[in-house]
């Protein structure tokens, strides 16, 4: 299987989805990923955690992941099975956090508007090509440094190899 190819159900969200709704604070008394995944979007979309399957694609509008710095948010989404998030734009801390834990993000305004909830999508992480029922879309290239982080397997591996020399 091509590691850079993602195919799955699209879960569509709107603008300004904040980390409080991604994983409400009352679930932050634990940090185990599988526990966090169970409560992902608990308040605004309770069926998400049960219906999402490995390889699914999350699509959102502007400013996805705004608010709290809780890394539990991208961790919950990743552990739930989502392989890539496509949005018009991402909040800054969420953007760092996602790449740091090896969850790729694509910025793609047209795809964000053109993809619908429930349809199947195909994403090529290598070149940012996104295919849905409504057509083919192109994401902005992933910045070089972020691509390095993803290739290294996240920030921990990056720091171990590049900074500590292990």
């Amino acid at each position, binding site marked *: 299987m091509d590691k850079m190819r993602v195919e799955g159900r699209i879960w569509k969200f709107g603008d300004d989805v904040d980390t409080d709704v991604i994983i409400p*604070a009352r679930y*932050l*008394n634990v*940090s185990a990923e599988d526990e966090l995944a169970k409560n992902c979007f608990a308040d605004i979309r309770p069926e998400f955690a049960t219906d999402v399957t490995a390889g699914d694609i999350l699509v959102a509008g502007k400013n996805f992941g705004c608010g709290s*710095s*809780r*890394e539990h948010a991208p961790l919950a989404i990743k552990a739930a099975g989502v392989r890539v998030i496509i949005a018009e734009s991402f909040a800054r801390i969420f953007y760092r*956090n996602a790449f740091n834990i090896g969850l790729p993000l694509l910025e793609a305004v047209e795809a964000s508007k053109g993809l619908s909830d429930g349809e199947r999508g195909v994403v090529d992480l290598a070149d940012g090509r996104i295919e849905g029922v409504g057509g083919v879309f192109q994401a902005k290239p992933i910045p070089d440094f972020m691509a390095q982080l993803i290739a290294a397997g996240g920030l921990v591996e990056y720091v171990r190899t590049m*900074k*500590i020399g292990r």
Partner: protein
Amino acid sequence: MPMTITEKILAAHAGRDRVSPGELIEAKVDVALANDITAPLAIKVFGEIGVGKVFDTDRVVLVADHFVPNKDIASAEQVKFVREFAREQGLKNYFEGGQSGVEHVILPEKGLVLPGQLVIGADSHTCTYGALGAFSTGVGSTDLGAVMATGEIWLKVPPTISLRYEGSLRPHVGGKDLILHTIGLLGVEGALYCAMEFSGSVIRNLPMHQRFTMSNMAIEAGGKNGIIEPDETTLGYEAERTSERFEIFRSDPDADYDRVIDIDVSDIEPQVAFPHLPSNVRAVSQAGNVPIDQVVIGSCTNGWLDDLRDAARVLKGKKASAGLRLIIMPGSPLIYKMAMQEGILETFLEAGAVIGPPCCGPCLGGHMGVLASGERAVATTNRNFIGRMGHPESEVYLANPLVAAASAVLGRIGGPDEL
């Protein structure tokens, strides 16, 4: 080449003469901060990196403030894990219990963050320390774990938005209203990835605690940091708290800004952010009749002594509306003690308030004031997202301490003029 204060601090910490927006740099970190929610993950990451010891036992600061006093067994286990790590590592600055308080209140209070420093915290409101003229920003736990191991962080140099405030402030208007108005103007992603630099005669005349309030909420406009050049007020504040030397940076007059926004404050009324975004602001006079169930005064946004003094001025000799829960949480044990000595706590108790311990409490719907479905709260906190303070069908309205206190008496959203 001229630079902004943000660029100068970043350049100095990257060992460079200059930096420009968009550049990726590796910068040395002066203070690395985490709390009881974010530290456990950061410690795990630190362990995976495998260096054994933190880069500097004086510069890694851990504060138990979110779910403390421990709200349940799982929270107690998290704090225990952080406490044991702090002990093993010999960290000089681990705070819990009576030594602790809201992290962004106690760090400045203890003189642990200084002008010109580069501060990285695994908490989004780490931007608070920009008020002291530091570069200070929030990150996630993995970034913080890497900082604890290496003392460095990669950063993209942000473009700066210059926000200049001129005019005269109307009664009952302060830093909270200025920043809410600004977020309303820019939108919740209006400053995405950008440095926000607050300046102008209004900021120069703003007391330190209101500057903290403004920098604190830079993140609510998407900002990376919210910075204010140090001046006499900053130096006076630090003189009482530290004997350490620090460097003062200032923006060059011809520095290059992404945008310059001039704000005339003369027409700004006390602001209220309606659910469910901090940008959804209205003047308090335009709030309409919104009955409320709870008022919360405190947090890293408005838990300062002067905020409590403001609330006490409004509440003196009055009672919270029947059936309304008034919860007041001083930001630190020191503030608690001073409020006690000044008789402020007595005013609160006579008004029917519950006085909570210095912690984050209900701000994030953790504990000590969680809302039921359909309930509404006015809070001096920083976020009013869906479910932020409890049930997804509850509502949070953000305001300054004067408006919050007045609303507690009125039982609906309103300003001190209505009392």
